[in-house]
């Protein structure tokens, strides 16, 4: 059964981070009373992630793909845009992470009402899902869409200044929760599979969609003529019991999942009309995903948040900058293996390319990218480098690369940006960064950096792929000519 294989795979992806933390535990940073929660958390990650992945395969993914193809086959642009917008808007509005983010922004700049910000982010996502859908249908090159809109983003963030810029980029990571991402990915696949465009259109919807929140936050900050940013971010909450964390997570996930589930149910009876047994399987799949992600998030929050903060603090204060950066590199690389959405994206890449681009290959490159991003983020905290440099160089470079990267890889790259910054980044890595910096202000922007790094890493993979294939073809031609 696939579930057992999934269990084996996820075990392999969670074990490295467990191993490193345990080694640290027995050498330089004893965890003390945090050890048991950490181990429980690790077990929950494995079980939750396997269940989630098994569930998305039979639940969220088929629904998203079918919806994509039905929307295209209706051949009514306005209808497609309406549904796309409603999905993006409703899903974001309900996402608990967005509320948290709005809180942070409000604490930095009290002239921005939280509700307005949440609505703006939701509007931004809805509009950019529409832009992404339209692009997918007509097959307009992804690179121009990205270059145009990121160009606007550049202008906006350089006006709002670095602390707001970092929050804007974090917003794009926070908006799409782990249940919505597989759905949006599948929606893009469904739309592109029903058109005669080649595979280049399959990816990129998530990437385009995540521009929306960045713009929304930056735009709102700019219009509100911000007072100076003064960081008074809230203290990390006190230690939680497992039961408390579980109930909080359950509530948050249920609220986020509710609207999406409602929309899907309405559509099942109006336009999707899955036959009986398929629908039963989908219902099971959704249930597995939901239970799985709740277990996963609980484990991450309960076992990993405090450990991350503690390690960051101990290592930065006792062992200095070099070890901090090295460990950040290590953590960044291996924590991404445990991000749920990364698994969904990479297996879809393998499916769409019929195995030509292997799952493990994409994953390794995402890991490399994130490893470097987290290390750079530590450097930034230690050396107090301006965040805007990272944004301009990072995003600027990735935009330039779109000009030479094969379009399929550009799509995968910008989608990976959205998926790499998931619950593991926010629980473990963000806490680690906060622990290192000692103040909440500098921790902002980490999630955004994590989201930027795969843009470059995956496009490098694409360029390598292109040169290899060209070389291979040349050799084959030579061989034929030689005969």
């Amino acid at each position, binding site marked *: *059964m*696939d*579930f057992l*294989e999934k269990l084996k795979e996820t075990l392999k992806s969670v074990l490295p981070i467990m191993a490193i933390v345990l080694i640290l535990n027995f050498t330089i940073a004893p965890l003390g009373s945090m050890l048991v929660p950490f181990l429980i958390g690790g077990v929950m990650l494995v079980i939750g992630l396997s269940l989630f992945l*098994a569930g998305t*395969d*039979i639940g969220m993914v*088929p629904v998203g*793909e*079918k919806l994509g*193809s039905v929307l*295209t*086959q209706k*051949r009514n*642009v306005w209808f497609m845009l309406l549904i796309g917008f409603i999905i993006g808007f409703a899903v974001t509005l309900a996402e608990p992470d967005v509320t948290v983010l709005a809180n942070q922004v409000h604490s930095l700049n009290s002239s921005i009402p939280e509700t307005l910000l949440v609505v703006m982010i939701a509007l931004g996502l809805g509009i950019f899902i529409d832009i992404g859908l*339209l692009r997918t*249908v*007509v*097959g307009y090159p992804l690179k121009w869409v990205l270059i145009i809109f990121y160009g606007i983003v550049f202008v906006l963030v350089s006006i709002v200044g670095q602390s707001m810029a970092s929050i804007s980029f974090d917003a794009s990571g926070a908006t799409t929760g782990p249940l919505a991402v597989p759905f949006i990915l599948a929606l893009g696949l*469904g739309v592109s*599979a*029903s*058109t*005669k*465009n080649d595979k280049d259109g399959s990816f990129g919807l998530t990437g385009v969609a995540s521009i929306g929140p960045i713009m929304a936050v930056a735009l709102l900050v700019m219009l509100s003529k911000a007072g100076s940013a003064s960081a008074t971010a809230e203290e990390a909450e006190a230690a939680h019991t497992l039961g408390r964390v579980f109930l909080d997570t359950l509530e948050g996930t249920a609220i986020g999942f509710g609207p999406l589930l409602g929309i899907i149910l309405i559509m099942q009876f109006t336009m999707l009309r*899955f*036959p*009986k*047994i*398929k629908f*039963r*399987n*989908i219902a*099971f*799949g959704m249930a*597995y995903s939901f239970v799985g992600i709740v277990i996963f998030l609980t484990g991450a929050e309960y076992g990993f948040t405090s450990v991350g903060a503690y390690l960051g603090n101990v290592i930065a204060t006792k062992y200095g900058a070099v070890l901090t950066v090295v460990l950040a590199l290590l953590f960044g690389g291996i924590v991404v293996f445990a991000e749920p959405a990364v698994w969904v994206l990479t297996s879809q890449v*393998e*499916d769409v390319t*019929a*195995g030509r681009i292997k799952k493990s290959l994409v994953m390794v490159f995402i890991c490399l990218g994130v490893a470097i991003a987290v290390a750079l983020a530590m450097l930034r905290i230690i050396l107090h480098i301006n965040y805007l440099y990272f944004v301009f160089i990072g995003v600027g470079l990735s935009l330039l690369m779109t000009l030479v990267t094969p379009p399929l890889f550009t799509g995968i790259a910008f989608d990976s940006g959205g998926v790499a910054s998931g619950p593991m980044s926010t629980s473990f890595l963000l806490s680690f960064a906060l622990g290192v910096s000692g103040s909440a202000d500098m921790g902002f922007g980490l999630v955004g950096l994590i989201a930027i790094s795969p843009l470059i890493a995956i496009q490098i993979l694409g360029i390598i792929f292109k040169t290899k294939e060209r070389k291979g073809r040349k050799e084959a031609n030579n061989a034929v000519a030689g005969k």
Partner: protein
Amino acid sequence: MLLLENNLMIAIVSHGQSDRFVSIAKDNGATGGTVIPAKGTASGGFLSLLGLGDKSKDLILMVIAKNKADKIVQEVRKDGKVNGVAALLGTEKENDMSSKWKMITIIVNTGYADDIMDAARKAGARGGTVTQARGTASADDAKFLGVTIVPKKEMILILSAADQTDKIVKAITELKCLDEPGIGIIYTQDVSDFKNLDPQK
């Protein structure tokens, strides 16, 4: 007859084992193969009731000289690293009227495979393999924003004993959810040889 000397071999193996299979086949006279990712459906029971029965599979298509087929299957089984089945399409020459196995192929709009497999299993099928495909667009196909729309399809392959084939086909064609025009097609083919690739004891 010259035409029958090359046959289409279809092999269905666990996901990731196709490279191994193709390389063994190449060592034994095959020229190459095409690998398609597919989904194997469970042979019923509790797991498929929970929706957890599906397994990732690789579907391998290979055109091979007929007399090489046995050797390839033998070597794969001797190697012992591949799990799956292989079938050789086409009528057997020796007793050409009736082959013992048949392959049922169903091509339908996407989303119906689970229901079709459920009906097929109840009629005696042991399992099936599902791959994603898309219909080819004809000249008068629908356009949307200047782009041709093509329907997504699922292709389902079921290998069954010849005496059960009719029953399975009947069960599928009688499915209520398939009761709309243009939803898909079903056909059967003779299979001259059918073997398990599981490791030799």
